């Protein structure tokens, strides 16, 4: 945990280029306030503003992250006429006023705090600008610092349902029905846990909304979605089930230029476009997913099968004896493919994989070595619908 605070009188700010000091320290002394996700350099680099936009994109994207909603003309929150911060260029046109009456005053504190490049606001024309917070049933006229905006975002009544819905998109690749009693129960438990991420994950992923173990309003209304595993799913799956650290090189602080990370960059991924509360989620297999996954699986196989120097903590498989091969195949089925022994499909899957191993060894054109045969068997398991799909 790192604490951020303003410098005291005469105190120097943290030296930004002291990488070692930054990594080892627990405090940052900054003149420019950084109070939450919406003031991080990563967020502001993604959602750049300008003189014309004047922090509206920043505010709208912050609202989307926090509440899953945006200023879109449907908000009926009562607000005074001509609120402080309203851009008069948009005040006289009813088409514009509907959104700007909320957007403009609510973004004012961003404009008063930050320059267009998200540094410290030093222009007195902007630093004293008044505003308020008005969005989806919440009105707060007591906004004088960026902390006040952060507090309104963090305590907004839409936060809990928004984050349950975001996790639904990740798990189901489609929305959950917000008025589903199961959904509302998860929202309540998430709130009661004072927004414990662990509680949210446990509650949602064990819910019939996701498992479909019993019928739910969401399943009835949304239908059954069987989706591909996108970038984040597949990489997390491989890391978790095979004990790999960051097989896809998703840690941007440790860029990888070769191997799996290059292929992974081409996998379908989740994305939020500007002004879009709903993510773009490719769900259907394509030839590029199939081809990329095969190359990834082959590389993982070569990393884990008969490798004298596997990565620390990784699962390893040996082709040294029939017993080893049987154990490997059993793990491919129960662990990688997640077909537990109680699943009637498990034994058949194991038989098919074992058959593949034997067939590879005895291939008439190009007989494989035991290592190659087991790598190929791993690759089959790795390309199965249990790995490349969610909901099979």
């Amino acid at each position, binding site marked *: 945990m790192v604490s951020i605070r303003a410098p005291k009188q005469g105190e120097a700010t943290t030296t930004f280029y002291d990488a070692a000091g930054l990594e080892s320290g627990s405090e940052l002394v900054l003149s420019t306030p950084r109070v939450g996700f919406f003031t991080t350099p990563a967020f502001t680099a993604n959602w750049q503003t*300008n*003189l*014309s*936009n004047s922090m509206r994109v920043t505010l709208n994207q912050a609202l989307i992250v926090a509440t899953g909603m945006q200023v879109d003309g*449907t908000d*009926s929150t009562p607000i005074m006429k001509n609120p402080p911060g309203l851009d008069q260029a948009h005040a006289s046109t009813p088409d514009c006023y509907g959104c700007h009456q909320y957007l403009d005053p609510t973004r004012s504190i961003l404009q008063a705090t930050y320059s267009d490049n998200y540094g410290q606001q030093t222009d007195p024309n902007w630093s004293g600008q008044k505003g308020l917070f008005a969005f989806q049933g919440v009105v707060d006229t007591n906004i004088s610092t960026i902390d006040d905006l952060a507090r309104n975002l963090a305590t907004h009544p839409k936060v809990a349902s928004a984050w349950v819905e975001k996790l639904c998109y990740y798990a189901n690749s489609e*929305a959950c*029905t*917000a*008025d589903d009693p199961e959904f509302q129960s998860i929202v309540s438990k998430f709130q009661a846990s004072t927004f414990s991420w662990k509680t949210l994950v446990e509650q949602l992923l064990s819910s019939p909304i996701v498992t479909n173990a019993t019928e739910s309003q969401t399943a009835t*209304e*949304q239908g*059954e979605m*069987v*989706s591909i595993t996108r970038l984040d799913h597949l990489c997390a799956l491989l890391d978790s089930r095979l004990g790999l650290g960051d097989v896809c090189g998703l840690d941007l602080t440790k860029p990888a230029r070769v191997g799996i990370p*290059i292929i992974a960059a*081409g996998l*379908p*991924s989740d*994305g*939020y*476009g*500007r*002004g*879009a*509360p*709903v993510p*773009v989620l*490719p*769900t259907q*297999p*394509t*030839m*590029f*997913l*199939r*081809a*990329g996954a*095969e*190359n990834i699986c*082959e590389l993982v196989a070569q990393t884990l099968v008969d490798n004298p120097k596997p990565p620390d903590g990784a699962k390893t498989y040996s082709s040294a004896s029939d017993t080893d091969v049987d154990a490997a195949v059993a793990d491919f089925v129960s662990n990688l493919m997640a077909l537990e022994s109680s699943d009637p*499909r498990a034994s058949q*899957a194991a038989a*098919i994989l074992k058959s*593949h191993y034997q067939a*590879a060894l005895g*291939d008439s*054109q*190009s007989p*494989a*070595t035991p290592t*190659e*045969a087991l790598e*190929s068997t791993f690759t*089959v398991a790795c390309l*199965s*619908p249990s790995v*490349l*799909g969610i909901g*099979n």
Partner: protein
Amino acid sequence: MKLNRRDALFGALFGGTMVGLRAIASGLPVKMLLDPRKALADVPQGCQASANAQYVILSTSGAGDPLNANAPGTYDDSGISHPQDPAMAKTPITLGSTSTTAAAPWTTLGPSGANVLGRTSVFHLATTTPVHPKEPQVLSLMGSTIAGEMFPSVLAAALAPCLGTLQTQPISVGAATPSESLSFQGQALPTVPPAALAATLLNPAGELTNLQKLRDSTLNDLYTNVYKSGASPAQRQFVDSLVTSQDQVRKINPQYLSALASIQDNSEASQILAAVALIQMKITPVVAVHFAFGGDNHNDTALANETAQTQSGMASIVSLMQALAAAGLADQVSFATLNVFGRTMNASHTDGRDHNKNHHVSIAIGKGFRGSLVGGVQQVDGDYGAMPIDSSSGAGAASGDIQPVDSLASFARTVMVGVGVNEDLVTKQITTGTIIRGALAS
């Protein structure tokens, strides 16, 4: 109970399945989201294009680049602001029978560069939106396509059966943001970055590659006997899609894969290499790229960025034309551009430009197009907007039969015909607009 407009709208958007919200976010109509296949069920199957069916490379940008601001026809009005850099000097250019002027980089489409002016049509349009997130809606022609399908997907569905491509769906290799990604029949399509193409499609030499055929056989066994047995319809459909994608991968012509190996990044040059290779491999009928022409240049001192990217953007088009010619594809591939909007142009815009819902410029280059300047600019709302268009000649005229609000759909209809799609299918797939004969080669 009295239901006011706001309540009705709110209920429609957020009630039940949130399908209204999804529709807003994705740009797809509710009908498409609820049942995309049914919504498109009346689309004719089989080849619906002439023998001259073309592949299409479409450049699109959600940034709303100032491609419009220095295009042919914008130098005739002295009230329009242009960069003062000599590299953007007003220069004569001839599009078919029309002699006009444009920023100097445009002339690289002529004999000194790509030499495609004789088959280049420049369209002055209005997308009617100044909003960045409306990029998906603009790609869906602001509601003018049947079932809200995106224009690249309309093109792809019409052309794929004629071209015999491995997949029907278009591919974006250039989407810079999720807003620029494509959808097909209501399904979001992944963007395929050029830098990942080689590592994705190339198979390393070795025994594991030799065992592919055996693995495919084993996987088919798994699909049939483990995963489809007792599966739900959705699960079976998913497994079938895996089978299809596996078949498609094995049909890729390896002859052109080596071209991908030199791609190291996602630059415009790499997008060109990727697009040409994907077409050579007959993978898709439509490839989307992103050629920048200045981006979202609100703050652009002396329009320097606009100047630099007009040059680099035009250089990319020239490179693409030269690459297609070198590959023997000059008569098989057409190029077009469609961005979310153009930018403001009045004299005050010397250090940046704002969004312009009233004016945008698209380009179409290919065998099916005639050198032509379609439409023009006129003063609108204190700035500039597209003029009405005479559908017969393509000329901009106050008396034109195509109003600016219909110009986007008219452009799309014209492009569809220009790339060989039968006109009766064009009018079914794009429900408004008028084909602009003056832009077509014949």
